[in-house]
């Protein structure tokens, strides 16, 4: 068994990064490494949004994006489910009505379990209703039509959109804006970020959505993993700088190494 050419550097980089992540996670768990995350306004606004919905007696809408649990956008869906755990806990605390809309059938049972367990952990299992987590359609635009229908009929007061979104991002954000909902959105899909920035009150940009679970739970393991990302980022920044200098000097050793 051998590696396919073109992946050799990638695999070794993956091993090194994995060791770095796991090491920082271990040190954080053991208390030998203290992690403090910077303030993320978008995540802090979630409580404000749910509180507002409670005061108004209107529902909170949450969408974990339209990606599946497989493929390169799957981490965004999992990150969204982490945030959903927190949203469920807060909804239970404030007795706010929560509506979770789902596009991908594979995400549906996961979201149902997250919400059910969230209510159970909060000591309010009776708050979980069959209509709390709703599968709308696996068709992208049918899904968004369903979401806009819910916005209009139920006049949601808070609209939380965390996960992978595509063309429906602005439709959902503008729909939420038109019914006057306070909106927190986040995605790592580069081309949808400007739409969220334009239409939402708070936007989580790129990697901030992955920090959501750690930030909201303050769990040491997750916090350690977030801190390790910064070290990897520093290493990457250094390699970009060194690579640029080397290429300018006519030496392509680093470039060749990266494509091995």
């Amino acid at each position: 068994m051998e590696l396919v050419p073109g992946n050799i550097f990638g695999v070794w980089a993956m091993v090194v990064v994995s060791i770095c992540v796991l090491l920082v996670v271990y040190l954080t768990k053991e208390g030998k490494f203290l992690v403090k995350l910077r303030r993320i306004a978008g995540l802090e606004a979630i409580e404000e949004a749910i509180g507002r919905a409670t005061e108004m007696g209107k529902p909170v809408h949450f969408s974990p994006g339209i990606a599946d649990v497989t493929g390169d956008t799957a981490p965004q869906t999992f990150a969204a489910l982490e945030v959903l755990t927190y949203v469920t806990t807060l909804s239970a605390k404030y007795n706010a009505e929560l509506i979770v809309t789902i596009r991908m059938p594979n995400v549906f049972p996961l979201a149902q379990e997250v919400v059910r367990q969230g209510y159970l952990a909060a000591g309010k299992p009776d708050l979980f209703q069959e209509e709390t987590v709703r599968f709308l359609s696996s068709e992208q635009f049918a899904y968004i039509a369903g979401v806009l229908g819910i916005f209009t009929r139920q006049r949601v007061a808070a609209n939380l959109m965390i996960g992978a979104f595509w063309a429906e991002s602005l439709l959902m954000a503008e729909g939420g804006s038109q019914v006057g909902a306070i909106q927190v959105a986040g995605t790592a899909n580069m081309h949808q970020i400007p739409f969220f920035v334009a239409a939402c009150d708070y936007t989580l940009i790129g990697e901030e959505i992955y920090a959501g679970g750690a930030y909201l739970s303050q769990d040491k393991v997750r916090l350690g993993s977030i801190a390790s990302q910064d070290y990897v980022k520093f290493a990457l920044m250094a390699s970009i700088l060194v690579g640029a200098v080397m290429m300018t000097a006519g030496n392509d050793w680093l470039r060749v190494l990266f494509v091995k």
Partner: protein
Amino acid sequence: MRREIPLLITFLVGIIFLFGPITTGNIPVLEMSFRQIVSTYLSPWTTIITAFAIGLASINLLRLHGSYVARKRSGWINSAALVISMLFFTVARIIRELRPTDPEVVAFYGRIFDNIAAPLSGAMFAILAFYIASASYRAFRARSLEASVLLVAAIIVMLGAAPVGALIWDYFPSLQRWLLAVPNTAGQRAIIIGAAIGGFATSLRILFGLERGYLGGD
């Protein structure tokens, strides 16, 4: 065991899917490549799980809207339309599967998509044009320094891309190209690199069972 078994399955399947596309040759003891394990064993399971998930989701949809119709809840007529369309499409697809070579059935099924599903999706997509205008109006109101920078950059990019821009000032097109190629690309790459590392770390946490939120919490 309710937690450990799913975590073990996640780890093993994750490793196999990870090494599938980047390795060749057989795994020493198993005499089978990662790719073969994926295509022979895992892909059919993926299909089976997805089929069950679709079943669960469809039942949720039918029960929910069925109860709205039965209780004549406000807006029940929409629910009735949804249930009828869903059943109609299901029956149409079953007939299409049972008679795949019948030209009339194939044409009828094609017409459903061409004349109902496609125009409806197109209509939803078209709304984007209006929403872009209203969102841009709100975003470009110069209420803060950041919004003012956004407004100025947007005006330059728009004028640089429109033929009239070059007539107003020769430098608009080159300024627009610079804005897109340098500050915009730099910002985008920074976000992409950060998001890629974040995605990788999240995947690693899931693979090693450190992230368990998707199983309904710790």
